[in-house]
């Protein structure tokens, strides 16, 4: 790259300008959503839209008064936390065994669940859960959402377990340590950061998942994501409320993602990319 230094500095400037521009394009729609959620109802539908206004929390207040927003939120938490714990409980030992014995079925199945369309599973689940009268129950939602969380946990944890030197396990084995004890006392503490990343990713994707709760929840167990479909129906008259709902629903995944941002990409690409 035969370049004069002044040339290169000029290009650096263009680079910064383009990056700022890209950042603005990425950020503006989200900023617009948050801004609209704080607009008074008569200003949110003003045309041309107003950029300067007195922020109010009116939309959030009416949202909590006119809709069972809080109970939707609690439903979302029950399903998301439940399925995340379920995924960790089943996935962490399975990933450990898969890493140790080099069996591949957990990874293959996880990949299969990631590739098939949700409706493919939803059709038989609907029949199965109807047979045992579980449609609308928390368990139906937790179990189906665990189909999202379990593959994430296995895929994220596999490389972490693979990175532990095998000599550590072998030494422990010679000392008479059982596999179960090795897992609990040696392997798990060594992958604690992997556990945190997999838990957060599992939480985010379970929280964000729309299709299963759309069909399998009822009015008692409806999650925020499934309820947002109703908000849109009502939102045609109340944009402020719609944007307030959208802001609250987006908040938990965004905060959690910001915490693990550095490890996120390698987790999301199933380890194909080192972040």
């Amino acid at each position: 790259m035969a370049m004069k230094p002044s040339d290169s500095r000029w290009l650096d400037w263009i680079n910064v300008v383009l990056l700022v521009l890209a950042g603005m394009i990425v950020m503006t729609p989200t900023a617009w959503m948050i801004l609209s959620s704080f607009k008074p109802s008569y200003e949110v539908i003003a045309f041309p839209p107003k950029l300067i206004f007195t922020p109010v929390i009116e939309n959030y207040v009416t949202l909590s008064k006119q809709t069972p927003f809080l109970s939707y939120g609690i439903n979302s938490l029950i399903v998301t936390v439940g399925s995340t714990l379920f995924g960790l409980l089943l996935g962490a030992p399975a990933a450990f065994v898969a890493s140790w014995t080099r069996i591949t079925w957990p990874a293959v199945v996880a990949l299969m669940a990631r590739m098939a369309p949700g409706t493919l599973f939803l059709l038989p689940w609907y029949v199965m859960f109807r047979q045992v009268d579980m449609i609308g129950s928390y368990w139906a939602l937790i179990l189906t959402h665990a189909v999202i969380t379990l593959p994430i946990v296995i895929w994220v944890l596999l490389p972490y377990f693979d990175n532990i030197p095998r000599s550590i396990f072998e030494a422990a084995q010679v000392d008479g340590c059982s596999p179960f004890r090795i897992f609990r006392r040696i392997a798990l503490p060594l992958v604690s950061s992997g556990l945190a990343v997999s838990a957060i990713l599992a939480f985010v994707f379970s929280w964000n998942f729309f299709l299963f709760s759309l069909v399998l929840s009822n009015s008692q167990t409806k999650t925020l994501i499934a309820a947002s479909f109703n908000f849109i129906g009502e939102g045609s008259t109340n944009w402020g409320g719609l944007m307030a709902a959208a802001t609250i629903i987006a908040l938990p995944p965004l905060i959690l993602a910001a915490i693990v941002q550095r490890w996120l990409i390698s987790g999301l690409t199933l380890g194909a990319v080192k972040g």
Partner: protein
Amino acid sequence: MRVEQNHRGQMAAMSMPALVFTVGMIAFPFLYTIWMSFQTYSSTGQVTGWGGDNYLRMVVDGQFWNGIWITLYLYVLSLVMQLVLGTGLALLLFRAKRLPGIVRSLFISPFMMPPVVAGMMWLVILDPSLGAANWILTSLGLPPSAWLASPVLVVPTLAMIDTWQWTPYVALIVLGGLQSLPPSVYEAAEIDGASRRAVFFRITLPLLLPTLVTAMILRSVDLLRFFDLIYITTQGGPSNHSMTLNIYGFRVGFEFFQLGYAGALMVTLSVLVLGAVMAFNRLRAVVEW
């Protein structure tokens, strides 16, 4: 030997819960859907026997072919935009060297928020009469657009929203690829006096191909099953112009309750996804260095 057996037992016990769950919730339902898709029904919906009726029906169903077309149209359009813009953004980020956490958080925010929320915010922004997008168009002296309500523009608009959401994801993958390229190659190119353009097209791009194919695989899997955003914004409309195979299959299954036919549609879509992944995997083997 007893100890050895005991160890094997413990290993099996540790993977057993996940195995049981996988068989019950993933493998069995998968086979059940395939089985359902080969059932035949009477006009009243009773199961009458076996056969390829559902698949024959698919071949003559105009809505199925429309679904295939919309799925592929949306897929190719989104994938091309995301790869081109994502690679561009990755090059910008790579040149900037340092990537503070706050900037990274900003760029991951679109794809970590629920697609449903993205749909809600873009519905408001793209509203044909009061939306901010049309306000920008009219203040630039351009005619306003119907966006998601337009039969012609609905797929490009959905592709645009998905591109807004997932381009940073592609960019961060490509950035990972850029950071792993060997610096020695660039030093050699500099000594040889290669031009900037030559360095990009002759060195960076070929070395980056495996990473780009990985990004293509990951995006293909999601894009071919495009669902949430469409269901929230248009539900396949206006007049079926955004009715992808996935949306159509869902509506056949859960609005008309024709589970067998919906199963056949979903099996077909799975084959499509699997085919794309296998094709890209072969491609990756070719471009690997």
